[in-house]
């Protein structure tokens, strides 16, 4: 059967389609979301309202969006550095948890008398924790040529189990009625709030700073250039004399540090303690964010905003409308699916066949 249209390869990737594609994917996701609400017996407009209007009607709402964006931006910016270099770090979630453990471990040391600078130690420890976790992946690949996709992914579960052990065992709050959680951190170890009336904290500023720094690194830094060359043409990187090992370690350590800070900022921010489920999958959602944001720090900030809306909208759909909160996951999946489909048009264009055209 002949379709009435054909895909024709473009001479060069379309620069417009590169940025139009995520927007089209978002539109298709919203349309699908409306359809889904219709099938669930709700007004399709409720889907729009609950995901895109309600979270943004108050300052507090904006704060929540910023708060949810924070770990997404941090993780996705780090992942973008890796993905640009063709290093497939899938384990930002594990590095985030390792950062939460390290940052949380330091935060638990704070006393009532600790100074305001204590949170700096928490953040530094979180970065070091995430970095150490990513270093495991880097070392295994560097030393044994282990596949970083598998290693980083499986280390996620190791980190989850380590956290689970800590909050069920040595770090369990004696006054916590047996719940798997640590004591609440002292206020000196908590992320300072940026804006009164919201829960937006220092982590958000760090995330924006990280995005700006990554942009500078990729656009103007020599190491950023090396990462890009290594990702696009590894043989050209060897030709230029860029060290593959240095690129591997740089990308993974930077990515791990950023994910670690995300974990620390969650534990010492909105959560305020270590619990066995510190992240609702931010590290995995960040993979989608990185690609929707075109591996570009500015794009990632925008994509994180949308993804944060999905998280909040999912919660609102549950609390207001009694719909399952797994809608968030459905939306995330749809967005990635549509993005991959729309990306076809970056390298191809659609040509309609002439009606009744004879085969030459």
């Amino acid at each position, binding site marked *: 059967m002949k379709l009435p249209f054909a895909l024709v390869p473009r001479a060069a990737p379309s620069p417009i389609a590169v940025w139009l594609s995520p927007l089209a994917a978002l539109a298709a996701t919203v349309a699908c979301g409306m359809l889904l609400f219709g099938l669930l017996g709700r007004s399709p407009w409720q889907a729009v309202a609950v995901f895109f209007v309600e979270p943004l009607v108050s300052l507090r709402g904006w704060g929540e969006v910023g708060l949810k964006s924070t770990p997404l931006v941090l993780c996705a910016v780090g992942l973008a550095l890796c993905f640009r270099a063709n290093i497939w770090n899938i384990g930002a979630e594990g590095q985030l948890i390792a950062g939460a453990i390290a940052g949380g471990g330091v935060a638990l040391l704070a006393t009532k008398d600790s100074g305001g600078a204590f949170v700096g130690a928490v953040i530094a420890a979180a970065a070091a924790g995430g970095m150490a976790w990513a270093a495991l992946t880097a070392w295994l690949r560097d030393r044994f040529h282990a596949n970083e996709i598998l290693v980083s992914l499986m280390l996620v579960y190791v980190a989850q189990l380590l956290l689970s052990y800590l909050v069920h065992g040595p770090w369990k709050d004696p006054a916590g009625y047996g719940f798997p959680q640590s004591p609440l951190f002292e206020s000196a170890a908590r992320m300072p709030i940026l804006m009164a009336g919201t829960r937006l904290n220092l982590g958000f500023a760090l995330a924006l700073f990280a995005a700006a720094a990554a942009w500078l690194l990729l656009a103007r830094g020599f190491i950023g250039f090396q990462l890009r060359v290594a990702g696009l043409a590894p043989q*050209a990187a060897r030709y230029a004399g860029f060290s593959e090992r240095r690129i591997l370690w740089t990308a993974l350590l930077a990515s791990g540090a950023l994910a670690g800070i995300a974990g620390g900022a969650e534990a010492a921010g909105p959560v305020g303690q270590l619990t066995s489920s510190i992240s609702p999958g931010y590290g995995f959602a960040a993979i989608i964010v990185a690609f929707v944001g075109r591996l570009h720090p500015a794009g990632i900030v925008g994509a994180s905003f949308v993804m944060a809306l999905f998280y909040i909208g999912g919660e609102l759909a549950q609390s207001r409308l009694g719909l399952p909160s797994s809608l968030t996951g459905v939306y995330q999946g749809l967005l990635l699916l549509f993005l991959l489909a729309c990306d076809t048009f970056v390298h191809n264009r659609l040509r309609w066949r002439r009606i009744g055209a004879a085969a030459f």
Partner: protein
Amino acid sequence: MQPRLSLRSVSKRYPAVLANDAVSLEVAAGEIHAVLGENGAGKSTLMKIVAGEVQPDDGEIEFDGRAVTIDGPQAARALGIAMVHQHFALFDTLTVVENVALGLPRSASLADVQRDLDAAAARYGLTIDAQRRVHDLSIGERQRVEILRALLARPRLLILDEPTSVLTPQAVQSLFATLRGLAADGLAVLFISHKLDEIRQIADRCTIMRAGRVVATVDPKRESEASLARLMIGGQPPQIAAHDTPPGPPRLTVDGLRLGGKGGAAVDFTLHAGEILGVAGISGNGQRALVSALAGEAQVDADALSLDGRPLRGLGPRERRALGLRYVPEERLRHGAVPEMTLAENALLTGDSLHRRGFVLPGAMRDFARRVIERFDVRCPGAEAVAASLSGGNLQKFIVGREIESAPRALIVDQPTWGVDVGAAAAIRNALIALRARGCAILVVSEELDELFQICDRIMVMARGRLSPAVPVRAVSIETIGRWMAGLWEADAAAAGGAR
């Protein structure tokens, strides 16, 4: 008599270019028909149309007098059309025999295919180990697989796209003998080439293409090489500058370099300032290992290499560039340049003065790229054009220019004009000669013997990982070098003058 294949007004348009513009062509059974044209003249597109890999936008095709639609490679095979590609269509991770089996219409067992393959290899003198994986094969060996695969399908029309570029002169002659035999059996052969002497030797008729159009169909045996060249490029062929200055002191010394690990044969030579030393040989005979060892992409054991008396041990490509040793790799895209990046960014690839304190210098990158574009006549929109958008010849001019512009003390060039049009090839050769006059030591690795004889002062041959002595080009004939390519130089070397 009706032709085996007849094309009438076939056109094909690509997004940026009209690749074929109303092309008509006839090939008779038993005829060897050459298609001559520069790179980008539309020869390959036309052949892909005949092989069913590309659909024409317009025109008619007749095979054995019947109008046909060749809407895929299967349809072409069913008609009896087989093609040997210039860019090989082989699966790197499969063995030779597996690749061949994939192309056969019937589902034969691998053992059967292997037997047929060995028989064909012996019959046509194209030996190959059928159990090797394609990624281990040299370019020359890969092409041998392509030719064998095409012949196994017992075609009625055989298309060969630039088949001789990777063969020794002797192997070219044996291929020609094979082709003449096949043609005598009634096979129609389409032979794509830009080598004028070969076309005059082998072809019964020659269709000449320029910029997508047929400009003439001639009997090549009645034409001179000069008249064919004029038809092909539409003007006078460019001249290579004469050069004759004595070489200077030794610059790059290679002493006991073992390319095949500890057990491999040792390679020795000395490259002098102000000379061009050629390395002839079919690719896959150790050239890649030699060149990566010299450029520092592969680290070699031993203190075998020194530049101006300074050992290069443990130095990577960047450190070697700092000492003045530069390199132009064989592959333009993905090795010598990053196709997705702009020319300015590609200037930074080996432009060690274009970044400072961890930051790149966009202004300096652009200026450098513009200088190269201007001095080496790189036809492109400017420094912000992406490398992939340039034609092969222009990108090669840019890469060679980039290395020359950095004033190297020694330059290694691997296949300087592979797949490059005549004009760009002449420009590149002249640039190398000019660089030599400024005292640079130049090592040129090439499969094109004509090119080496044109520009080199001395020449050596690489075969099976070993290197022959270097001899002055004036003291040696192309035939001798051809014999050396098979590894037989011991007897000749002393007589030809030996190493300097």
